[in-house]
């Protein structure tokens, strides 16, 4: 069963897509939704008929909100077509969110090494952080109030004998009633740990950190798979300093990453971007990100399937986070900061889509660009 909600003559294609982007997270009665541009209709497939009126009202509300917003689109700043690629669908056995195997593990390693090299070239210090992050840290950057649709909170059973004795009896269905929030969430990004490390301090000159971590975002179940995961591996380069340093480093890394993307023969583009602020009243912040060039995304495009997704982002957040975390320079003025984030799973998925699941057969120049040498591994695997 489905709802077809006409927005023709009311919203343009870009606005209708924006409605769908929010609708995804706005009712659990939806099992899939899309925009049918030919008909000018937003289409929502329902879990069952009882959700019809709820979902219709949600679509109407989001559509009205979108109509009232200034219609600002992303601007493409770099573009690269690659018509020679014959795309593949990575086999589930080779690329699975649950388990990565052999050559794919190696691929993750060489991709990460590439990004670490880029970070070290820019004098980054190495860091490792844990997967949980406190609500206090997330409240400082208002993550939960801006992006409630994405947060995974960690719960726990109280250390009380009566409660723990019930846990065994109630099994899965009763866990929710017996548990409480722990005060921690699963980290949605690596960079917040860096800001916590710098929190309340004065930095002496520009600072650059790099860290890799598993990040977690609550995603609609029907969207999970291929490039969209609820747990993913992210390498970030995080930097703070005076405004010129931050802007220049962000832009320099963008150029370097674009060169890597070209060396790897991948098709795609760089465009201005915004974070997915959930609430209408915060949408203006996302629009400001676009017009102020605060965020760019590198988008991989699979021309054959129409699939496209961001594999890296380049952010100059100015003083927005450093002000919240009270990070100052030696002159006591609030510094600026930025970060570059690489979704390693998505880089791997893009390469597997472009060149196939059998990494050994990839073109030599691609393996060279990745510094990918499988000979040692092949010898080990053969024995």
């Amino acid at each position, binding site marked *: 069963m489905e709802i077809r909600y006409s927005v023709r003559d009311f919203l343009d294609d870009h606005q209708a897509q924006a409605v769908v982007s929010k609708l995804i997270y706005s009712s659990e009665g939806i099992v899939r939704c899309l925009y049918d541009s030919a008909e000018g209709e937003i289409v929502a497939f329902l879990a069952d008929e009882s959700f019809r009126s709820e979902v219709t009202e949600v679509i109407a509300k989001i559509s009205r909100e979108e109509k009232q917003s*200034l219609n600002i689109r992303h601007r493409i700043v770099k573009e690269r077509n690659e018509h020679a690629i014959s795309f593949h669908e990575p086999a589930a056995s080779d690329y699975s969110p649950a388990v990565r195997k052999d050559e794919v593990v190696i691929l993750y390693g060489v991709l990460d090494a590439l990004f670490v090299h880029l970070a070290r070239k820019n004098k980054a210090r190495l860091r490792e952080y844990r997967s949980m992050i406190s609500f206090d840290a997330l409240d400082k950057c208002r993550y939960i109030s801006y992006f409630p649709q994405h947060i995974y909170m960690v719960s726990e059973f109280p250390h009380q004998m009566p409660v723990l004795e019930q846990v065994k009896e109630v099994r899965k269905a009763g866990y929710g009633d017996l548990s409480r929030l722990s005060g921690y969430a699963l980290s949605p990004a690596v960079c917040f740990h860096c800001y916590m490390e710098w929190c309340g301090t004065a930095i002496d000159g520009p600072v650059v950190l790099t860290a890799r971590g598993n990040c977690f975002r609550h995603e609609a179940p029907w969207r999970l798979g291929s490039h969209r995961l609820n747990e993913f591996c992210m390498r970030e380069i995080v930097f703070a300093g005076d405004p010129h340093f931050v802007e220049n480093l962000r832009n320099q890394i963008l150029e370097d990453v674009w060169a890597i993307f070209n060396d790897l023969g991948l098709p795609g583009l760089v465009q201005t971007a915004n974070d997915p602020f959930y609430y209408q009243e915060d949408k203006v912040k996302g629009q*400001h990100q*676009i017009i102020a*060039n605060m965020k760019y995304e590198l988008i991989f495009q699979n021309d054959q399937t129409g699939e496209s997704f961001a594999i890296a982002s380049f952010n100059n957040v100015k003083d927005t986070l450093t002000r919240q975390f009270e990070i100052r320079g030696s002159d006591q003025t609030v510094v600026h900061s930025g970060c570059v984030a690489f979704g390693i799973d998505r880089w791997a998925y893009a390469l597997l889509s472009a060149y196939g699941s059998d990494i050994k057969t990839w073109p030599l120049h691609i393996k060279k660009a990745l510094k990918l040498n499988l000979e040692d591994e092949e010898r080990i695997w053969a024995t």
Partner: protein
Amino acid sequence: MGNITNLDQHQELIQTIKEVMNVPPDYPLDKEIGLDSLNSISAIVRLEEALGINFKNSDMDLRLFSTVENIATLVVENYLDHGR
């Protein structure tokens, strides 16, 4: 404001921009206005309404709105018909 044919009309444009952007009459034309995430979008909307234009998406770049002079240049070169 359909076109700019003389100095008076250019002055009128500058005056309108200053009013919309909430900067004093004697504010230097080349000085940063300092739009931030709280006021940038509303300022652009007010400019569109005051000047009777719609900025193209390709012009939605804050660098083009950084000073009164930049805004005037953007408007004159791309949105007014210069009396033709």
